């Protein structure tokens, strides 16, 4: 007998909100990026598990999971380029040091 889909949902929901917590609390830009990776992975678990246990006739959730991974990779690459650019300008990547714009 398989684990009910709800166990997987508990897992993904907890992981999602761990990511949200990290996004709010983290001060290091790379740390924030890692929290976002956790969020995207939680979402991916959701898509794949719904596909596997609820709607196995079509591969919709499966494909969504694949596309999320593709997009996440590209997004991380651009974000890291930007973070390195921030570092080059300020020699620091903490959120506190980039608060200058607020008048």
């Amino acid at each position, binding site marked *: *007998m*398989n*684990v*009910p*889909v709800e*166990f997987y*949902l508990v*897992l993904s*929901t*907890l992981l999602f*909100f*761990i*990511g*949200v*917590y*990290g996004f*709010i*609390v*983290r001060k*290091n830009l*790379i*740390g924030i*990026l*890692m*929290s976002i990776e*956790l969020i995207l*992975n939680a979402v991916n*678990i959701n898509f*794949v*598990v719904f596909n*596997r*246990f*609820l*709607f*196995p*006739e079509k*591969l*919709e959730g*499966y*494909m969504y*999971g*694949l596309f999320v*991974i*593709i*997009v*996440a*990779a*590209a*997004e*991380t*690459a*651009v974000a*890291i*380029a930007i*973070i*390195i650019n921030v*570092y*080059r300008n300020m020699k620091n*990547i*903490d959120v506190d040091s980039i608060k200058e714009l607020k008048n």
Partner: protein
Amino acid sequence: MEFLTAYLTANNIIFFILAAIILVFGFLSVTTTKILRAATYLFFVLFAIAGLYLLLTYEFIAAVQLSVYAGGIVVLLVFAILLVKNLGEETEKVSCQKKLVSAIAAISGVVISLVTLFGFGFQNNESADELTANVNMETIGHTLMGVEKYQYLLPFEAASVFLLACIIGSVVVATNLKKEDKK
């Protein structure tokens, strides 16, 4: 007890182990003060999620997860950390008040979501196992490259433009201007 023994198959035990790994290391990776350790914990989480996909018999997406996420993104993150930080340096301390407020927000989010999710009563599809056994590379290839309903040629093509734009964008942003000026 019957309820318990019904669930105590090898597959389900592995699920619980993987879930524990994902949650514990996920939590550690957002709370640890050393950023390189956070990246290591994140690696464990991503690895365990790939294991979860294998457990669901979706081998292809598990392989993609391993190669793109665990193999690509984490390496990229570690490079970035090594480029911008001294090894082992601690990140700034976060005030307890902020931690508390975000923890309360996150926990209430979990509670609200779970209550509504359980209220819906998701039911496993009885024939899920048989239907999933048919998912092989050929099906995946046809789904990704087909033009009929439930096939995804157009998003696939759009993703190629997206990736090209992202490559160009990150190269432009990451190029060092000082070198260009010297030329």
